């Protein structure tokens, strides 16, 4: 509401890539915003995504690309802090990714029903695709997970969940992928692909047993208190990025994507609800 | 000049100094003797206002210095220098700086905090050190000096204060006989040449006899003797030190002994 002219613009970028890689792949973007706004623009890449969230809540960061769960967290803490404006559209036109349930091929588990009474590994409690969404969906269809599975464990991360299942420490587990391409490649991107490429697991040994509904890609958010003119400029610049500077868009989107498309809070109602559910469940 | 009137100091119910009174007219060399715990240090500390008195007055030129507070008290301290048994110098600072500390009360606090002293002060400190024969030690750290040299630095600090009265609390107790003599001679010289009053606590009779114009004997906080050194007989000494105390003055003497006759004899016998 109180739209004072700004003296600088701070951009927060979440993890998933090396800090330096993030810096470099966003350098063109930073320069473009700087040219557009006429104020110095700085990029911040905290290791822990809580760092970006605290920055947005405290008002020291003006803009960031977030995960869906991170956005939900900010919204639940302070609905007036940020607003979502754009999200990433994948090459197939979708704007999301999936949580994928999987097991060892030789375990005889081929569907989530087969995993009843077995041990099941989530990634970590704060992960959207590694726990929040699959936990909520599975609980909806199968009831209390502690009762449905023999044992519910947290592996500590996507990586550990995949390796844990491949090693037989858990009977089944869940991790994420974009759902594009082939299972045997570990899909086009996601945790499976990374593990397979690194030679940590052999995709032939694993089977997919479950797939979640589409989980929305995280939004690009802007601080609500920014002057409307600034918001418009940055949004416009980003929305046009795929048309104006293909290479730069590749860096900002972490890879191949079709476009950045507008998004509103409504797209995240599901994730927000899942978070609320978890909160009261514990 | 100095009038001590009914001064008392009570520590947790016991009087360390118990209603003492005496007066000194000119710039005398006053020695206070008495056994350990007699209240000698407590009295000197009250004079320098390091310890507060419980009752009584100490008048210097008619002004009761025990009543001074704050700035005035500090101003009095700067006129009344104190020399300690353990020298109480700042060991890690150099000799000249230690001497300059005598001026702390008279120079602007801020400048002193950065150890910035006017050139004239430094020159005066060097002069005083020269007078005491330790000018070559000037740039050394105080801790690098021998005990006798350190005590002379302490005296130099006292002189730097340009005091009316010098108080010395057992100034030679931690010195060897050689250095003790130098220090006492120095104090005496200051007393005679500059005409400053010196009050010294001493723990040996012979020193008191040799240097003082006037000797005050204390026991259990009270003055039990006040007179000239000549009046200080062995009987009086027994009184001061307590007769139960099997008294052997030699044991506490700091005089340099005559050649050990016995040793020499023994050696002669062997070498024969």
């Amino acid at each position: 509401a109180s739209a004072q002219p700004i003296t600088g613009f701070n951009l927060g970028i979440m993890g998933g890539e090396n800090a330096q890689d993030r810096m470099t792949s966003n350098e063109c973007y930073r320069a473009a915003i700087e040219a557009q706004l006429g104020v110095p623009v700085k990029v911040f890449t905290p290791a822990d995504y809580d760092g970006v969230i605290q920055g947005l809540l405290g008002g020291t960061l003006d803009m960031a690309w977030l995960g869906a769960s991170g956005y939900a967290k900010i919204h639940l803490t302070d609905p007036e802090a940020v607003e979502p404006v754009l999200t990433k559209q994948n090459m197939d036109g979708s704007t999301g990714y999936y949580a994928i349930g999987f097991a060892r091929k030789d375990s005889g588990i081929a569907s989530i029903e087969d995993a009843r009474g077995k041990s099941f590994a989530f990634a970590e409690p704060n992960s959207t695709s590694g726990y929040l969404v699959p936990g909520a969906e599975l609980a909806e269809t199968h009831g209390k997970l502690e009762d449905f599975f023999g044992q519910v464990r947290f592996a500590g991360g996507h990586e550990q969940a995949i390796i844990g299942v491949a090693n037989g420490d858990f009977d089944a587990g869940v991790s994420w992928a974009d759902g594009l391409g082939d299972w045997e490649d570990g899909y086009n991107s996601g945790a499976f692909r990374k593990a397979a490429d690194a030679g940590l697991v052999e995709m032939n040994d694993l089977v997919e047993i479950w797939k979640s509904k589409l989980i929305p890609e995280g939004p690009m958010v802007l601080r609500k208190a920014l002057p409307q003119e600034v918001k418009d400029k940055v949004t416009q610049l980003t929305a046009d990025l795929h048309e104006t500077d293909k290479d730069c868009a590749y860096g900002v989107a972490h890879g191949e994507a079709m476009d950045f498309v507008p998004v509103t809070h409504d797209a995240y109602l599901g994730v927000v609800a899942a978070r609320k559910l978890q909160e009261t469940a514990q | 000049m100095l009038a001590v009137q009914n001064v008392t100091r009570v520590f947790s119910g016991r009087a360390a100094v118990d209603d003492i009174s005496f007066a000194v007219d000119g710039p005398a060399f006053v020695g206070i003797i008495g056994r350990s715990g007699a209240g000698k240090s407590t009295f000197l500390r009250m004079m320098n206002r390091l310890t507060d008195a419980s009752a009584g007055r100490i008048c210097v030129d008619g002004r009761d210095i025990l009543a001074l507070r704050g700035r005035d008290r500090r101003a009095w301290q700067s006129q009344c220098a104190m020399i300690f048994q353990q020298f109480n110098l700042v060991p890690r600072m150099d000799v000249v700086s230690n001497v300059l500390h005598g001026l702390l009360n008279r120079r602007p606090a801020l400048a002193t905090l950065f150890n910035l002293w006017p050139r004239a002060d430094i020159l005066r400190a060097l002069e005083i050190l020269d007078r005491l024969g330790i000018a070559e030690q000037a740039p050394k750290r105080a801790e690098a000096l021998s005990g006798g040299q350190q005590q002379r630095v302490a005296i130099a600090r006292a002189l730097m204060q340009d005091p009316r009265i010098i108080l010395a609390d057992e100034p030679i107790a931690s010195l060897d006989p050689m250095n003790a003599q130098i220090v006492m001679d120095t104090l005496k010289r200051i007393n005679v040449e500059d005409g400053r009053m010196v009050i010294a606590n001493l723990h040996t009779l012979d020193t008191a006899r040799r240097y003082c114009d006037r000797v005050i004997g204390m026991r259990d906080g009270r003055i039990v003797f006040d007179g000239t050194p000549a009046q200080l007989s062995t009987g009086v000494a027994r009184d001061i030190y307590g007769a139960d105390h099997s008294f052997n003055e030699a044991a506490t003497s700091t005089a340099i002994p005559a050649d050990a006759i016995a040793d020499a004899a023994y050696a002669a016998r062997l070498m024969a």
Partner: protein
Amino acid sequence: MTAATLSPALADTVLTRFARRRLAAFAVPLAILAYLAYAAMAFDLAGLAGRARMDNAAVLLSDFWQHKTHVTRDNRSGALRVAIDGEAKGTYPPDRLPGWIATQGDATRIDLGQGHVVTYDAQGARYEVPGYGLIDIRPQDGGLHLTAPQPLPDWINASDSRVSVTTPAGRFAYTRSKVETFRYQPGWALFFFTLDSPFHYMSWPEIAASALWGPRLDSGLPNVAAMARDFWTNAMWRHGDVIWAMFETVLMAFLGTFGAALAALPLGFMAARNMMPFGALRFGLRRVFDFIRGVDGLIWTIVLARAFGPGPMTGALAILLTDTGSFGKMFSEALENIDEKQVEGIRSTGAGAVQRARFGVIPQVTPVLLSQVLYFLESNTRGATVIGAIVGGGIGLLLTQAIQTQKDWEDVAYYMVLIVLMVMAMDSFSGWLRRRLIKG
């Protein structure tokens, strides 16, 4: 004289003492062992032994000193890509492929060494393994057809959608979409110059020659400067950014430590029994110190991140805050242990409170305080690595990121070496300073 004169009571006391001590001599090690056994159970050491995958560890850790080159063919488009660690910035230009890859029309021949040869061609791909035979893969009817000597060994993992082969010489994987060969080679690839720098293709003597008298490769710059620039801006290793990050880490430690020392000095005086007459204030301050220290820098980082956002200042302030607690406590203890004689000497000249502190107290405590501060400077350099990871600054960020993303283990090794060197340098620097300042 004989034992007869020895009082039996004495012998008894001594003997019982020894018996008691014998008991203690066994009890203490036994207690320690019992505790360790309990801890081993509590930590599930047995289960851990089963879970630890040393082969995975080997895969990960070999990356510390090895690099792998991906030779990938997209089976749909037929495009060939040769890239170090599969990264865009490590991709070889098609005309400057390494010598062990030969292309001829559609066919690519990859020599993995020791007689292992992989060939991609229009029909599919073949892998010749010495001592075993030929592995031949062809796509057929939407699946893969594998021809290889039977029975299949366990280092070949095949289904009709994916075949992968792992040998000591490298890894090979064929799926419908692509075929990929990984060759592992020791060394940190592209450490000095990346593939787009002309200097990458020179040997060391050539580089030296080029630096000294070679013709200018970049008309704007002398060759030495161009080399420095190419090294400094190396896109794979980013030496420039890394050095800057190290500087930022040291900066956080420096600001935090000395800032805390400056803040703690007056507070320490206020919390020392012999300097502060008001007991309540002293007690209060001490509890504040306990609280600040007890909370720990990491939590402070999170609290401060809300107010100041990410960045090195937040990290420095977090260190400053924590250390103010530690220094406050340590300084006040040092002040309580001072020699009162010096203060009294200063007091007797009529000096005020501040002057007494300056001349009676400070000279005594400086060596103690200084050595504590310098000791903290060194350990905060290590601490700033961790804090930096959270506030998004310094070498710590690079390190934790490289570990979390798991593909850049050679970067991890590089950063670790640098951190160890940095901490050692700070250690000897603070040791040197300590000796200089305290003696001087």
